[in-house]
């Protein structure tokens, strides 16, 4: 059997049929890039020792169009997304699993790019992919590539972080500029093309979180404002904790380019997706200290205190605008689509 043609070859149905072609794909593409001791066991299930304490598990399905965008691709996104979900419990991520669903005809060169990007993201984050699977669907039955990743992690002793723990009086911190990921995706979407230097903020946040929980172990809530943006995450936290939230527009970091793209397309930065930001709710007394720690980390340089938790039976998120008024910041209705009127 000749080697995979990574330059001109495409995915064929047989690559997912479990036979020799499947194993060739694994041996020539996945194993060399993902290589680690646990993966080398080569079994259907990978065995590992577990440390004492509380563990967390999360799973995340990744679909994105286009697959390659400024600042990342579906590969790095699938690694960062799951690491971040583990980290939002305050846990240290240990291992990842990945399953990839490919569409017949998908170029092997693109697959290799995605695999290399996943491997780099996992290596940089120091969270290995220790088991995986690939399936192939017929042409027309998939959108190129879908990736589902799961992750496990261990929660340090004394840490208890959950979306229902926000208390009136707590302060709300945001780790940096919002809307970069969503605008980067929009800028490369067919028909909308506009050019901008904005790149996706896709990044693994577990090291930032690790420093945060070490300094302030009594953090109440952590969440990454991905789909639905900051507005949706704040509404989720308000509902889960049965509290209200007051934020201040002038404190929320938004890049000028993101503001510009939003004005052009009739969108609101509060609802645009992020892939490398977190929202943190902590007791007022710890907030300044936490802010300093966040600002010292490269992924939290532009961190800011953006508001506080209030008592509110309606569980509304209310924003004081730079203009001087108050307005409700509602859940995202439908999806954020460019509008003309």
């Amino acid at each position, binding site marked *: 059997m000749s080697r995979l043609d990574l330059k001109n070859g495409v995915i064929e149905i047989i690559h997912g049929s479990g036979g020799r072609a499947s194993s060739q794909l694994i041996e020539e593409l996945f194993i060399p890039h993902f290589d680690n001791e646990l993966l080398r066991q080569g079994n259907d299930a990978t065995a590992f020792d577990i440390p004492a304490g509380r563990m967390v598990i999360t799973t995340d399905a990744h679909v994105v169009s286009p697959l390659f965008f400024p600042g990342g691709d579906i590969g790095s996104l699938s690694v960062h997304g799951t690491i971040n979900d583990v980290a939002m419990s305050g846990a240290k991520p240990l291992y990842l699993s990945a399953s990839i669903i490919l569409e017949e005809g998908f170029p092997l060169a693109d697959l290799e790019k995605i695999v290399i990007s996943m491997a780099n993201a996992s290596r940089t984050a120091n969270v290995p992919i220790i088991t995986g699977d690939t399936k192939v669907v017929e042409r027309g039955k998939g959108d190129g590539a879908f990736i589902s990743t799961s992750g496990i992690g261990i929660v340090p002793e004394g840490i208890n972080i959950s979306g229902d723990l926000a208390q009136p009086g707590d302060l709300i911190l945001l780790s940096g500029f919002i809307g970069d990921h969503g605008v980067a995706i929009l800028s490369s979407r067919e*028909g*909308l093309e506009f050019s901008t230097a904005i790149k996706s903020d896709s990044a693994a946040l577990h090291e930032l979180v690790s420093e945060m929980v070490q300094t302030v172990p009594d953090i109440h809530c952590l969440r990454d404002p991905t789909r639905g943006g900051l507005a949706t995450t704040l509404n989720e936290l308000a509902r889960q904790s049965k509290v209200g939230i007051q934020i201040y527009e002038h404190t929320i970091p938004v890049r000028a380019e993101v*503001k*510009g793209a939003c*004005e052009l*397309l*009739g969108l609101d930065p509060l609802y645009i997706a992020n892939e490398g930001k977190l929202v943190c709710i902590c007791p007022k007394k710890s907030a300044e200290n936490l802010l300093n720690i966040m600002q010292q980390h490269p992924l939290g340089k532009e961190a800011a205190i953006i508001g506080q938790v209030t008592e509110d039976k*309606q569980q*509304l998120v*209310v924003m004081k*605008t*730079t*203009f*001087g*008024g*108050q*307005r*409700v910041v*509602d*859940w995202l*209705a*439908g999806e954020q*689509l*460019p*509008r*003309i*009127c």
Partner: protein
Amino acid sequence: MKYVDEFRDGDKARQIAELIQSEVRPDHQYRLMEFCGGHTHAIFRFGLVDLMPENIQFIHGPGCPVCVLPAGRIEAVIKLLENSDNLILCTYADLMRVPAGKRDSLHKAKARGADIRMIYSSTDALNIARNNPGQQVFFFAIGFETTTPPTAAAIKIAHHEKLKNFSVFCNHVETPPAMAHILSSGETQLDGILGPSHVSTIIGSHAYAECCKQYSTPFVIAGFEPLDILQSTLMLVRQINEGRFEVENQYCRAVKTDGNKKAQTLMSEIFEQRPLFEWRGLGELANSAIQIKNRFSDFDAEKRFAMEHIEVADIKGCICPAVLRGVSNPDECKLFGTVCTPEDPKGACMVSSEGACAAYYSYGRYRTEVEVVNS
């Protein structure tokens, strides 16, 4: 953002508001209609109501293209999509969630398999037609006079390129007849009108002169930024106080008396008056819309596909029509905020973020709920 940020200055806004406060006559109720959804949106988004004296009342007008489109027009497109296998529908995303008949929408039609592409510009529809010569590309054109010239440009280009697979479903409507209808019906008493800003860049401020004179109603062409709206309100208050009624132009940085002649010439080359067209809420209005001229009938989707006229009854209890005429407020509707929400809109005014119901729901609840808590 130049020409945006300067017009969103909160301190200046409060100063203009004070001036309005000092000039309104305490014994008079000022009922001002903001024609455009853009004004409605800005009034809520920036909390301008909070800055206004109590005797100034904003009445929301029909200036939301998505809201005034009869559901039957969408239903007709869905029918067509279901009966053809080589049709690509191009639409502005604004239309996707608007309720057609029987809880259907373009969004749902897409989920059932229709090839629907959301576009940003009419030029995108042309590109899709060029790239898919084997398929019919159907452009669902909506909008007021602002959006009409880009549609005209697309038809002209398609004609020039002899594109065989491109057609336009024309739903473009004109604002002055709608305004005249509201003023003539006398259903709601209005003291003044904040006129369209971007529509007026095309048709010019003089387009409203006749209407203003005939109904003796003060008129100010108002920009969409909060300071524009406040200044326009002050200008209206002064006209009302002085017993004047004329068309004044606050948005003079973009609106000329005669409008954009080149765009007008292009529009009249491609389009002609449509004798009768239905507006949701206002009913059938004479000479209030346009249609594609015979010379360009190859590009007229209504002719190419012999589209059906479909009547769709309004959802029971929905008062969108009354809201669009400025007769009722969204919160007077039994469905408002209960069965009709932005997630599951029953009426068109809840879909578009420019719709009066959506603006009330998204931004207005804070006000009403706080009032409830306080009382």
